[in-house]
């Protein structure tokens, strides 16, 4: 692809983010100077230990938690696995029923599926057309043998922000543990674990300009779940393994920066997002916005373009310099399009034509808006070669033979 355009515009901040220079600067001395093992008793070890506990306290302060409630993990997926399986194994004698939603991240859904194979019963709550979970449905799904409710704070694909406080209150009243996957919400929404009323909360560093490979599980004081890894005494012996101190420092720095800049960043990002959505909906026909019009993450725009398929769209956008993602089957390696888009009721063919643009702190209004003419051109180009569009223009529907594998 010799003719590839050099200028790149990164619009996939929900997938991962660039590590901020301030974060790199904070991490470097922990690689090169303060390199000790926090479990060692000599000076280097004790220095590392105090750096570790300082970072834990700073992170706790950002979340309105106690330092002893912060556990470092390797990623958001690990945090979700630990919260769900750790609760399931700890309370197996009390019950084996877990409630979640149909639109959770695979880290949650596949953890639940793994438990189902071990004899647990999982209730997958449906969502409405905007992707919202109904707290009343959570309440009526809770049984005497329910041991955990896990509902995400904000959805990674369509950006819908869930009524977590309300759900947490219901769980508290019913004396059922509540976990939330806040991986996408962190950095975009303020997170106050006490105000939210959650028992457990998962975070990931690389969604907010810290490196990949570091996560957090908040576990409220008094909540006991089984250990994730057995070994040394690290993380109160619940998650053994030498702490990844440089990345922990990076996470602390990134979280503090995101919080201190939130008031300035969020309105700016929301404004650009709305401008983008309006420009696309106004200038390209047969497009729909997926997710909630208001209760959505500041940087998330998820759009479905009828008559075209998402992977083709992504490849052409990539060629023009834009990095985005899609919920089409072809980009996931499976036959079905995104489970989230199907859960909000989109027909398969519309779900296949979805595009997620996720705007971050470092995107300028100008570069985000520069995707609009490219989208206009690409969508028209793909529609011009689409038999679905041809049928649409000819006002007829070709009777395609239903495919058994997909029509199930």
């Amino acid at each position: 692809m010799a003719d590839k355009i050099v200028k790149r515009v990164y619009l996939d901040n929900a997938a991962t983010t660039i590590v901020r220079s301030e974060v790199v600067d904070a991490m470097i001395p922990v690689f090169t100077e303060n390199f000790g093992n926090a479990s060692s008793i000599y000076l280097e070890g004790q220095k590392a230990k105090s750096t570790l506990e300082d970072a834990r306290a700073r992170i706790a302060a950002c979340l309105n938690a106690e330092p002893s409630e912060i556990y470092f993990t390797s990623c958001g997926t690990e945090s979700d696995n630990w919260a769900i399986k750790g609760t399931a194994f700890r309370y197996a004698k009390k019950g084996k029923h877990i409630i979640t939603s149909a639109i959770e991240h695979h880290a949650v859904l596949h953890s639940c599926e793994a438990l189902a194979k071990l004899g647990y019963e999982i209730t997958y709550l449906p969502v409405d057309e905007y992707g919202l979970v109904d707290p009343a449905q959570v309440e009526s799904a809770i049984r005497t043998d329910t041991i955990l409710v896990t509902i995400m704070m904000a959805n990674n694909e369509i950006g819908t922000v869930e009524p977590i406080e309300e759900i947490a209150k219901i769980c508290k009243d019913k004396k059922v543990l509540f976990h939330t996957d806040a991986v996408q919400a962190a950095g975009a929404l303020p997170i106050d674990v006490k105000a939210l009323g959650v028992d457990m909360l998962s975070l990931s560093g690389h969604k907010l300009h810290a490196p990949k490979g570091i996560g957090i599980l908040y576990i409220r004081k008094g909540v006991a779940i089984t250990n994730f890894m057995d070994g040394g005494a690290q993380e109160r012996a619940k998650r053994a393994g030498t702490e990844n101190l440089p990345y922990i420092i990076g996470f602390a720095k990134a979280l503090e920066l995101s919080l201190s800049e939130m008031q300035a960043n969020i309105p700016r990002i929301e404004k650009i997002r709305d401008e983008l959505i309006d420009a696309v909906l106004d200038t390209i026909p047969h497009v729909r916005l997926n997710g909630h019009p208001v209760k959505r993450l500041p940087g998330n725009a998820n759009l479905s373009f009828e008559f075209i398929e998402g992977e083709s769209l992504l490849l052409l956008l990539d060629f023009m310099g834009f990095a985005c993602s899609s919920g089409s089957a072809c980009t996931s390696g499976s036959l079905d399009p995104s489970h989230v888009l199907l859960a909000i009721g989109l027909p398969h063919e519309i779900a296949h034509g979805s595009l997620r643009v996720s705007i971050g702190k470092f995107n300028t209004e100008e570069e985000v808006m520069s995707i609009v003419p490219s989208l206009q051109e690409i969508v028209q180009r793909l529609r011009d070669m689409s038999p679905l569009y041809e049928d649409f223009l000819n006002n007829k529907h070709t009777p395609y033979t239903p495919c058994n594998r997909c029509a199930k």
Partner: protein
Amino acid sequence: MLYSDKVMDHFMHPRNVGEIEDASATGTVGNAKCGDIMKVYLKIENNVVVDAKFKTFGCGSAIATSSMATEMIKGRTIDEALSLTNKAVAEALDGLPPVKMHCSLLAEQAVKAAFKEYFETHGGIPEDKKAFFDVLDEDEHSV
């Protein structure tokens, strides 16, 4: 990159996109639910495929295999064109990722579906050519 340079070339610069207004036959295969539909148009004169065009709704490899398949049958006699296989299409594109192999089958099926329509409007499928159409019964996802 997920795709070979040849796949990307045929995706970025697809050959034979469009419709043939006075087509001798067309063939449509696939399903919007699964994310790919191919429609092939053939213009046949004196037992020769004088023109072939396509329209495709699908991923990069679906578009590239449609492009390659139409290239491979253009200017060929019906007998030559009927011997097109999905394997040959994939090979001509320097291979496809394993999860995309069904796209090449879809391309073969689209071409065969068009020939089927052609024969059906020209006295029926000759007995000795019926085996060429067995591929239409294959499930694209089993590839």
